[in-house]
């Protein structure tokens, strides 16, 4: 199976990809998984002062099937890791993960027997936001970075390559 576009480097597919990326980047519905202090800053970001809704990330989807971005805010303990993994696995593609706060990125100050040292050893992380807890501006910045990242993806090309490999 061969995919050809109108002139240029796959013109049609490129335009389609741009459209899809536009849609995806304008409505990243978050799954706010705030476990600790960062959860409060996450609330502050959702509240009126910072208003995460401006980026379309307004509808918090607590059901993993409906979410696009796993906003992991806070410490993940070893008791919690299976839960986090399962939630990530339940989310539908395409999915992104933002690790908010030092604990989520690296384990933070809690280098102890019960704290998991960074969620990136369980699930792939797209954006790391350092800080303990990060300011809402930092979270918004991370979200914008994620949006830019989404805009540069090639959703169709990935599929096409997968198809080519299959056939």
């Amino acid at each position, binding site marked *: 199976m061969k995919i050809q576009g109108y002139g240029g480097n796959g013109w049609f597919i490129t335009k389609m990809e741009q459209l899809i990326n536009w849609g995806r980047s304008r409505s990243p519905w978050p799954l706010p998984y705030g476990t600790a202090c960062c959860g409060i800053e996450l609330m502050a970001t959702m509240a009126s002062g910072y208003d995460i809704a401006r980026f379309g990330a307004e509808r918090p989807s607590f059901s993993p099937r409906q979410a696009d971005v796993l906003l992991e805010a806070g410490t993940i303990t*070893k*008791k919690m890791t299976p839960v986090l993994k399962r939630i990530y*696995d339940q989310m539908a593609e395409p999915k992104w993960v933002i690790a908010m706060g030092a604990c989520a990125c690296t384990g933070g100050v809690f280098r102890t*027997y019960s704290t998991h040292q960074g969620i990136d050893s369980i699930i792939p992380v797209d954006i790391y936001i350092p800080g303990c807890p990060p300011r809402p501006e930092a979270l918004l910045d991370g979200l914008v970075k994620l949006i830019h990242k989404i805009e540069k993806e090639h959703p169709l090309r990935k599929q096409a390559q997968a198809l080519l490999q299959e056939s």
Partner: protein
Amino acid sequence: MNLERRVRICLESNALSVEETAGDITVTVPAGRLVDSLMALKEHPDLKFDFLSDVIGIDNLDLFRKKKGKGKAAEEEPPEKKVKAPPPPRFEIVYLLLSLESSERLRVKIQVPENDMTVDSVTSIWRAASWPEREIYDLFGINFLGHPDLKRLLMWDGFKGHPLRKDYPLEGKGETRRLVYEQEKIR
């Protein structure tokens, strides 16, 4: 009448020792007489310690190690006496009591030796002791006799070891969890 005397009168011979640090009074009672003593403290008309703030477990392992290692007193002791003396109880459990009427606080302490780690539960007196006792069971491994639902509280069920013991490292020891799914059989 100050608190110390009242406590001594109330507990009589059960009060092994009464200490004062920074204005707080700690009374040590024998582990076997714990429930009786706490009941007496709760019922006594002069004391009325009717509120249990918390139950605290302490592991004194490092304290002995240090004494053995550098304390001059330990070195000077005659060696034969050191061998004969039974090992000091490793664990302590502290009950924080509060009297709502007079707002006085009292700490009741029992000592739990390592070879007999069973303590009577006080959940029959205060329901508030339920979770703190479970927590001590979880983190120190001390059993509570008569606790309605003694199981791990903070750590997960399959966890091995008791993290707050002094011989447990801050990080390490078999608590990593494998994160793979079983191949699920669907229908």
